[in-house]
């Protein structure tokens, strides 16, 4: 391994790269080398500067200090075009695809060639690349009809179409099912074999161990470690990344189940494209247990949560809270039954980004006494309520009057937790509660869920993160194409079987 590094010329070398935003240093004198036929992992918590560093390499941000060499030559990029011309492609976490256009159009853009579009020639080239690397995407398919995994393949195809030799992948597995991840890794292996080099951004330690040759760890914008993967361990990487030892396992405790708190009977609903998203779903949740709903995202979990939250009226089926039937699609009656709702998208549906922390905290209680009396709200009560929330959920903020958008992802989620959990609800429905959060914030959310269970609440945990499901659940159901593929208790659950269920295979 050492020998290889010594004899070969680095394809990319970043020396002392510094990037400042108005008041923060996002990258502080970072060094990074990438060799041919190599996968380098770029590891770090959210906000550690991984994506920023890569955006500098991709020419999306200007360099504030340091230098970059490609194939030994000094370069200076002023836009992604320069990076593309040097054979660099970046596959962003949020895909840069046009949903209403075809696969072919998405691939062609920027590489069209002649004035009039030559679809035929482009299609031949695309199919040639697909054949070479074992892809099977229909060039004429419209992007929105593709699964997330297929859309990611399209992003890789876009890069290959540009003859990119260096691929930057920003958390590529965050959106994938276990089987899709395995497929992605196979693709990456093929690419490396055929002379490509890959920078793989992740905070998933196991994946970094699986796919990378070498790993560079960033913390607070600084490079804190670099090591061959064969010479490190997961716990070591974790503590390097966070800067402290982590609790390796939460104690999820015993479940003392009580009454049935939530029951769904034969729920059925179409999504906004008119396709059946939830197809005859039934389950029961008892007090004092965590029921995990596993599944690859896009298999009806969002629609299920929308029905439970009262945002969407089921076309068929009933929802009961504590044995009482809740009218479908009625937000106010769900709030009245004190369901704590932790929505999937905290920015779009969970919070009003422009309102203050305190205003976001009273969203559901502002019509109730003591905050509201005779149609007037009591500012003093709001302040003491918000103060209590901020303290008991240790929200890091400049104050309760700060706009919520000034908070970090983890603290945004804490604001939601505070709002939803402060009255000790009997029922908690959490949808992807740790999506996009870093390890520290994740740990906090997990602990909060378990505390709710401890105090006797029933917790429905909808998540596409299988680790999270295993960590917290007492019982697991798996959703696939809007149906339940199987149910199993946590003790009897094994990952392979659940993985198969998630891919729609029953055995």
């Amino acid at each position, binding site marked *: 391994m050492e020998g290889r590094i010594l004899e070969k010329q680095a394809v990319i070398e970043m020396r002392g790269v510094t990037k400042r*935003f108005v008041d923060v240093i996002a990258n502080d004198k970072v060094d990074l080398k990438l060799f041919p036929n190599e996968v380098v992992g770029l590891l770090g918590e959210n906000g550690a500067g991984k994506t920023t560093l890569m955006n500098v390499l991709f020419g999306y941000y200007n360099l504030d200090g340091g230098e970059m060499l490609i194939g030994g030559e000094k370069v200076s990029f002023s836009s992604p075009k320069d990076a*593309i011309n040097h054979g660099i492609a970046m596959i962003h976490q949020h895909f*840069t*695809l*046009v949903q209403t256009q075809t696969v072919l159009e998405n691939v062609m*853009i920027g590489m069209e060639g002649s004035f009039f579009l030559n679809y035929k020639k482009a299609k031949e080239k695309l199919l040639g690349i697909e054949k070479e690397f074992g892809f099977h995407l229909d060039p004429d398919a419209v992007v929105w009809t593709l699964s997330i995994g297929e859309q990611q393949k399209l992003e890789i195809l876009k890069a290959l179409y*540009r003859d990119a030799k260096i691929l930057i992948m920003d958390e590529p597995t965050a959106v994938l099912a276990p089987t899709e991840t395995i497929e992605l890794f196979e693709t990456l292996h093929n690419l490396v074999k055929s002379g490509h080099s890959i920078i793989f951004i992740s905070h998933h330690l196991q994946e970094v161990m699986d796919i990378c040759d070498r790993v560079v760890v960033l913390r607070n914008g600084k490079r804190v470690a670099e090591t061959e993967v064969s010479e490190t361990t997961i716990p070591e990487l974790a503590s390097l990344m966070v800067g402290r030892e982590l609790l390796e396992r939460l104690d999820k405790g015993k479940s003392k189940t009580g009454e049935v708190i939530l029951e769904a009977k034969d729920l059925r609903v179409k999504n906004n494209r008119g396709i059946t998203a939830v197809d005859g779903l039934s389950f029961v949740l008892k007090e004092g247990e965590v029921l995990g709903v596993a599944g690859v995202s896009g298999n009806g979990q969002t629609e299920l949560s929308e029905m439970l939250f009262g945002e969407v009226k089921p076309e068929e089926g009933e929802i009961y809270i504590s044995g009482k039937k809740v009218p479908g699609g009625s937000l106010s009656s769900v709030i009245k039954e004190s369901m704590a709702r932790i929505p999937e998208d905290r920015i779009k549906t969970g919070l009003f980004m422009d309102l203050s922390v305190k205003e976001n905290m009273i969203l559901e209680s502002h019509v109730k006494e003591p905050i509201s009396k005779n149609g007037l709200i009591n500012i003093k009560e709001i302040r003491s309520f918000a103060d209590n929330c901020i303290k008991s959920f240790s929200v890091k903020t400049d104050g309760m009057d700060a706009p919520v958008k000034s908070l970090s992802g983890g603290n945004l989620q804490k604001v939601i937790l505070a709002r939803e959990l402060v009255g000790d609800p009997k029922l908690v429905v959490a949808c992807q509660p740790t999506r996009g959060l870093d390890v520290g914030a994740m740990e906090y959310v997990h602990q909060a869920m378990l505390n709710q269970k401890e105090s006797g609440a029933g917790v429905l945990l909808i998540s596409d993160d299988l680790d999270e499901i295993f960590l917290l659940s007492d019982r697991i159901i798996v959703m696939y194409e809007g149906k339940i593929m199987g149910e199993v208790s946590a003790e009897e659950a094994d990952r392979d079987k659940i993985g198969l269920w998630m891919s729609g295979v029953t055995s």
Partner: protein
Amino acid sequence: MMSEIFTVTFITGLIAATLRMSTPIILATLGEIITERSGVLNLGIEGTMVFGAALGFLTTLATGNLWLGVFVAALGGIVLSLLMAVLAVYMGLSQHVSGLGITIFASGLAMFIYRLVVGSPIVPPVITPFTPVAIPLLFRIPILGGSFFTQYSLTYITWALIPLVSIFLFKTRAGLRVRTIGQNPFAADTVGVNVNLTRTLCLAAGGAFFGVAGAFLTLAHQNMFLIDVIGGRGWIAIAMTIFGNWNPVMGAVGALMFGFLDAFQLRMQTLGVDLPFHIFLMIPYLITILALISVSRKATVPAGLLRPYRREEKG
């Protein structure tokens, strides 16, 4: 009355008037479609048309050259659209506010320049307008000849522009880039397409269309400039852009429908039906609203519309 409606002269006249009256709306709609496909709503359209109408008229009044008038009107439209680009593209201000601001500014400026040049005479000055050009042989076809093939040159050009704009948007490199920017500017930027420059060029092209659309009204349809010469046709073009689902052909169909209703109501007024003429004036607008309600539910708005693009300067 029925017998009057179905005379050959009436029908020929109606078709001819429909094509004539829809010309400025088709032009403006095509311009707005190009602009909105790139993700910019240009509400400066109405004012830009007034400006084009005034500039075109004054140029011709001074030089006697109609085509020079058309050319200057197009230039005026481009200048105003570049102002829109500075505000809404490069400074990233609200497209609604910038556009409405330009409409108010340009309408005032048009009247100001007109007054500077001609003062306020009791009888407004007139020019010798475009005359319809009969296409050899084709104009002899009964009914169709007198209506379709005896039109102003600008009308023929407008008809040619409908397929040309379609081909531009759907069959050319630049068109693909415009559509991509209108849907997902970030995607275009990451493959090295200059988002703001492309938007500016689209605005400029749209502005030229608006200017000429305005000039059509003072150089062909009428022979004088009045401040209300555009009479909301710019807003109708905005509606037709939505009605046509950002597709040039469908947008033109909508504009044609409006032109037909406009021509029809004028004829109804002269038939001596005992109703206030305001009722007839309302008809085209009313039916446009109804058509919009039915169609726009299915409309697929360019996803990047109304969103200024700048690289996020945040991690």
